[in-house]
């Protein structure tokens, strides 16, 4: 069993309307020193497989098939060791 943390965020340059709206609102609230760079998503998974490499491969598959839109998003994976 491996715990996988997946962080997905907008690809640099791709429009990030969420970040723009949060920025606009923070500015209205007077938080002038804070810049919102991006808003992303995160997923925590548990994968039942024999090795960390296998977990990584499965995660990469999942990302390609379903979880990540490679054109709009980039992602990073961290595998949190077996349990």
């Amino acid at each position: 069993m491996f715990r996988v943390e997946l962080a997905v965020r907008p690809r640099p340059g791709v429009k990030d309307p969420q970040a723009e709206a949060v920025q606009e609102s923070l500015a209205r609230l007077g938080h002038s020193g804070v810049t919102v760079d991006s808003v992303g998503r995160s997923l925590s998974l548990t994968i039942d497989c024999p090795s960390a490499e296998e977990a990584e491969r499965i995660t990469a598959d999942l990302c390609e098939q379903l979880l990540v839109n490679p054109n709009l998003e980039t992602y990073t994976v961290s595998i949190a060791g077996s349990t």
Partner: protein
Amino acid sequence: MTLSTENSARELGLAMGLTGVELDHIVAELGREPNRVELAVFVGMWSEHCSYKSTKALLATLPSSGPGVLAGPGAHAGTVDVGDGWAIAFKIESHNHPSAVEPYQGAATGVGGILRDVVAQGARPVAVMDALCFGDPASPRTRWLQDGVVGGIGGYGNSYGVPNIGGLTVYDTGYEGNPLVNALAAGLVRHDGMRTAAATGPGNAVLIVGATTGRDGILGAAFASEELGEHHEHTARRSHVQVGDPFMGKKLMEAMLSFDDGLVACQDLGACGIACATAEMAAAGGSGFDIDLDLVPQREAGMEPFEVLLSESQERFMLVVAAGRAEAALAHFRDHGVHAAVCGTVTDSGQMRVRHDGTIVVDVPAALVADGTPGQQWETGTLPGPRPYPDFPIPDDLGAVLVQLIAQPGISDHSRLYERYDQTVGNRTIRGPGQGEAAVQKLPGSTAGYAISLVGGGERCAVDPYLGIQALLGEAVRNLGCVGARAVAVSDGINAGSPSDPVEFARLAALIRGLGDGLRSLDLPVTGGNCSLYNESPAGAIPPTPMIGVVGTVGDIRRIPAVAMKTGEILLLAGSPPGEQGHAAYGRLLTGSSGPAPSVDLAADRRLAAFLVGQIAARRIRAAKDSGRGGLAVALAKLCIRGGVGAEVRGGEWGSRPDWALFGEGPGAAWIATRPEDAGALIADAAPEGVPVQQVGVVGGNRLTIGGIIDLAVGDLATAYAKEPA
């Protein structure tokens, strides 16, 4: 291929998709070779998507004027009178290729784009409808696509605050590699509130308002005019897809609709972005534009001139504002929380002149860019003729057939899909998805209203495009009749394969000819539309697929039939059960083949619709449903399911082939439920109008029985209807 390579303009132009003829034409008109930025502008603007070079001549044959038409093809959105000084601006747009690649954003930006057309016309959006075609409903890929597409349509429209009031969903293996996503948007505008794209008045200011401009979908328009390759190629092209921002879109819509001080002209920025708007607005007004790209608010640093010009960043408009009113305009838009900048001036040069970093990078005649393509001729092939169904005996259990038909994806319940759309925001929706044959909304402060029927699909058109599109027109007119609406005007979306294939071009031509002839026999104008070509995947072209949106007027929304029929009402059959074996879902189900050409009788549909409108105005109709996919039996089963009530129909009407009578898809037929006391008068009125009407049964109980032929519990029908595709 990039714009910075050292190839000659000609090589570059050819590589980017211009033809030799087009390049020669450009050089001849300019009297010189275009530079690289100009070339990119021509590539985008002379793509099929922007120029309609393959269909222009065909579309010109369509009837486009009529008594109610306030603005026809050529306007941002066709606009028709619906009474009380109000008009409906409406149009269909496709976003097939972007949605195939990135379903959520592709569909969302498709909806955003068609809404901007309506806003550019000066209308407040009041409705969206969508027409979707997918492959195998059970495949994971279809589920992924549908989930994304429906999510995107809802995600944009729900947030923007425009209700989705109906649509259609078709499943057919012909769309496996190339799904179709078409959307219709409608808006309300006062007759005197319409806006134009025609830029006039040298010295007037050119403004760009809305979102900032980024490197979004550069040459997406050219992309929309290409065939889709293998799936992995989609990935490589994903950068073409835009990101929609309904929040910005909504703010921008409010800002646009509350602005008129000094407004001369406006246009939404869609395909080919600034290049398209400048060329088309100048050409429409017979003027010229001087644009300075450095003044355009940009999201990213270091954008090339062609990138700024052709960017398809969403949520933007271009405006022409009277000189001297520009400052006030900027303040107005900024107050609404959207970006705004003056980026140029109107001139009388007729030229589209673009400056970047102090140098002129484009200097070409606006009219040449906007509509100067030499046009494109394609070879026309011969269409394969339809074939009759192979003979088959009448199935023993027609009830079982009905259950099978009603569970077919495409005929079965779509509520899981349309539940993801807000249907009631705006307080206008009288009949939304699942509530009637056509969508109905009411006019502000009035009991009058309008209805829209959106129909489409390629199955019948694949058999016979000319008759197939007419069958769709007939269906739309019948649908409107069932809600008491008189058809006024049509907007169409044509989806077809690659015109370079002679057979596909013949299909396209037959569709448009069929549309024109059908419209003429119905006395209806087309006020706009959309053509999406090159819908192909490695498996071949899609079936030729028109989407037809028809707007009608409703005199009194309080008289339209109820959503469902009720116990104690009398069942009448208007029209005759189809005798011949025209193309039908039934035949397909039983034989697996696509069968003969669909049966069409537009005159009968027109008579039926007029009769229904009159009887509804006379308050004699409690429920009505025309015969559509699956024929009369499916129509009646759906009426029963909707009302949770049974019906008992006598036998004897159904001839020697009761299967074809009940499941055939002939024109001119509908079920009517009426109160016993109204039945006589209704039937008496029918004959003089040339509509055969007979009393055939009663509403009540919890079973659907048709003579000795069908006897089913409504609950079992409902279960089959609601089943999810496995």
